[in-house]
């Protein structure tokens, strides 16, 4: 995985949170592999990538963080069980992936419509021929993470200063 393969997702996440949620976001050290991906969080928004970059991006939240982020985006109270809740998580994943995609200048990349999983204990498992990086994030004191899982890249180079 090339260094520049991760930094677009960090920049995109910061841009989306600054602009649309008006929440300060900071980043921990990205880690390779799936061992640091949380397994007990409630909400995951997933976008598939195809074309010159193949894989998936997942935005994973504990329940309380997801609710805070959804309400910051929507500008109103949103019930955890409502259709609007999953829709907002999907739109967050969509904007982060889309804003990251735009930074891969000259590459032809398509993103899928979002899928959203809401429920306790969901976990992320990537295909064996992908390299996966977990980017820990903090939005105004609440943890969440971005998981980027990409094919055909060199994993050993995924050391990106957040």
């Amino acid at each position, binding site marked *: 995985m090339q260094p520049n393969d991760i930094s677009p997702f960090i920049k995109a996440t910061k841009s989306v949170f600054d602009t649309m949620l008006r929440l300060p976001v900071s980043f921990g050290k990205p880690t390779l592999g799936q061992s640091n991906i949380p397994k007990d969080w409630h909400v995951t928004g997933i976008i598939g990538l195809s074309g010159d970059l193949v894989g998936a991006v997942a935005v994973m939240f504990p329940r309380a963080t997801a609710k805070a982020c959804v309400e910051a985006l929507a*500008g109103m109270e949103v019930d955890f069980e409502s*259709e609007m809740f999953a829709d907002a998580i999907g739109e967050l994943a969509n904007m982060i992936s*889309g804003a990251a*995609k735009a930074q891969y200048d000259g590459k032809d990349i398509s993103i899928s419509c979002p899928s959203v999983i809401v429920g306790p204990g969901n976990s992320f498992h990537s295909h064996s021929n992908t390299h996966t990086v977990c980017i820990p994030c903090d939005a105004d004191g609440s943890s969440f993470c971005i998981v980027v899982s990409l094919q055909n890249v060199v994993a050993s180079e995924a050391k990106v200063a957040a």
Partner: protein
Amino acid sequence: MKVLIVDDSKTMRSIVKNCLGGIGYSDVEEACDGQDALEKVAQCKPGLILLDWNMPNMNGIDFLKAYRAKGGKAPVVMVTTESEKARVIDAIRAGANDFVVKPFTPDVLAKHVNRTIEKAQAA
């Protein structure tokens, strides 16, 4: 003036609708994809269309091509994450008048909406 917001995300339609209300455009119709939008434009004859790109059933560009092919004249502002140069060129060729990249602030959306309407009225 009636504004048609076309986006598969209910959340995004709500955000855009609030932005429009803030600059005096409260007569808003919503469509959830390109197919739905083709039906809505025939019914509500919008003066402005705000159009997402990636949507199920029919995407924004296919809607735009179909709308222009049928003689649709309302100005169209793309509101999308698709911001690469090639995509912008594709959209302009298909008949888009302006482009707002997600994420956006209310001020940026307002500026593009007002500018697009002013240009359309001057033409």
